């Protein structure tokens, strides 16, 4: 059986140092028909983002080494990724994290634990 030819699916980069959450995010986004690229720390996320130029990045704010804020800042300073939509995920409740994320140049900010539907809606909205 031959699958119908369709437009290439958007590539989404997800980065989280927690394997379970990484797989959960991957499952949610793949089921929403995105191609997912996984990164397990900030350095890998930055390298993949610059190499593959995904349509969107979902980054955990708190990662060892380069954290989500720093990755966002570096993406914003590169011409090729300056306009790449970035969603930051954080388990921290402080309002100061939100302003830090915004200051780093993130487009959206999702608190953990997140609602699957809510996350998918936000990704969809940023890719529209």
């Amino acid at each position, binding site marked *: 059986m031959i699958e119908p030819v369709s437009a290439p699916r958007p590539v989404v980069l997800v980065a989280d140092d*927690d394997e*379970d*959450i990484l797989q*959960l995010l991957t*499952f*949610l986004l793949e*089921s929403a028909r995105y191609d997912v690229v996984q990164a397990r720390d900030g350095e890998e996320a930055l390298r993949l983002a610059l190499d593959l130029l995904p349509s969107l990045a979902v980054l955990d704010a*708190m990662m060892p080494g380069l954290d989500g804020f720093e990755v966002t800042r570096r993406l914003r300073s590169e011409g090729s990724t300056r306009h790449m939509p970035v969603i930051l995920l954080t*388990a*921290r*409740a*402080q*309002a100061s994290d939100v302003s830090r994320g915004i200051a780093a140049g993130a487009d959206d900010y999702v608190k*953990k*634990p*997140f*609602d*699957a539907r809510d996350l998918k809606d936000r990704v969809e909205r940023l890719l529209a």
Partner: protein
Amino acid sequence: MAAALLFAAGAILWFVDQRATAQAESQAVSRTHFIIDALLAGELTQNDFSRPISGRRRTHLDDLFQRTVASEGIVRMNLIAPDGLITYSTEPSLIGRRPRHELNSVQAALGGQGVRTISHVQDGDRSIKVLETYLSVSTTGASRPLGVFELDQDYDERVSAQANKTVLPVAGFMLVALLVLCGALVPVLRRVTAAVEERNRRLVEQARKLELSLSSAQEARSEAESARGALAEQNKRLRELDRLKDEFLSLVSHELRTPLTSIRGYLELVLDDEAGELNPEQRRFLEAVERNSGRLLRLVGDLLFVAQADAGRLSLEQEQVDVSSLAADCVEGARPAANEKAIEFSLLATPVPALVGDRGRLTQVLDNLISNALKFTPEGGTVHVRTFSDGEHVAVEVSDTGIGVPPADQPRLFERFFRSSAAYDQAIPGTGLGLAIVKAIVEAHRGRITVDSHEGQGTTFRIELPLAANSNPAETMEVAA
């Protein structure tokens, strides 16, 4: 002391002696004057002073002196010519001599002065101290004195004796006075000495005390310094602890939420039949897991909230909030829970002015109060919510016909982790954080919360939020709770 008195007495005696001697000497001179004026003036002639006298004249003069002048203590009398020649003397061997050493005295006497000198003369084998007085002799009508009359007197006899007559009584008086003085003064002096000693003793005592207080002041200073040091150390440790607490909060927040994210995320997938269709029993079990993971999540949130409020880092959004419509939303949200317990659940919302505050936090307050009311009200009871304004505040009252709060528990009702004994007794679940959070949020809005409760009859919570408190909606306030 006595030595000083003796010295003073000695000094006085010496002074008196000096005075007495001078007086005796001047008396001796006066005597010479008297002799000349009263006895000799009419007798002596120019001739008596021109050449050494002899023969009848000399016998006459001897007789005159012997008769009128000679007496105890008079050693000798001379008549001396202006050129110093002794023309007559009661000591015959001196007549016709011209002693050099007397010349000055003779000259001075001729000049009108009363001259007196002291010398020593040999009288047989003994040496006599002699007071020599020289006085000029004149006759009436003559412009120049005829010559000089010299009267030599035994010093000891005529002067010292005189002086002693004065000095001895004085000395005696002095001695008596000294004794009296000693008698009178010694007790006084003793008292003075005692007073001085007492004062000295006190001064020494004071000095010792000063020294002591100085050293204790130094001690206190060093103690204060070490206390300050300890305080600074403690401050440092407190700041360190504060930092650690922040870090801990952030860590707990992250570490608890991360596993909960996975738990709830995967659970949601399973419950959404993403992993295949669930049978009713599987669904029921997993729903219990989801419910309890939700409780855990809320507990983490509540703990973090309270910790933030504690640290004064409760940040509030500043939005226009219509409390009446907020109350309506909350009542609507809680309606299913009320229906479940067949509770009569009503809202009386009057139009109130909008206030500036954090809509999310105020929703949390009303949700908390309403869920509490429903939780503590038995089936078939009543929960009533009312909003109103007095123009300065917006008030919300949540009344129930629940079990009530025992009077003893009411003061502690808003303490964190405090749970009323009534809630315990009836095994009503809760963490004891709900009302603490409500109070923190209300106070962060500069409002206040009160409770009116009667055991077994019901409870009314009332919050009052000032309308004018949060006047600058653009800013995010950091408020100490």
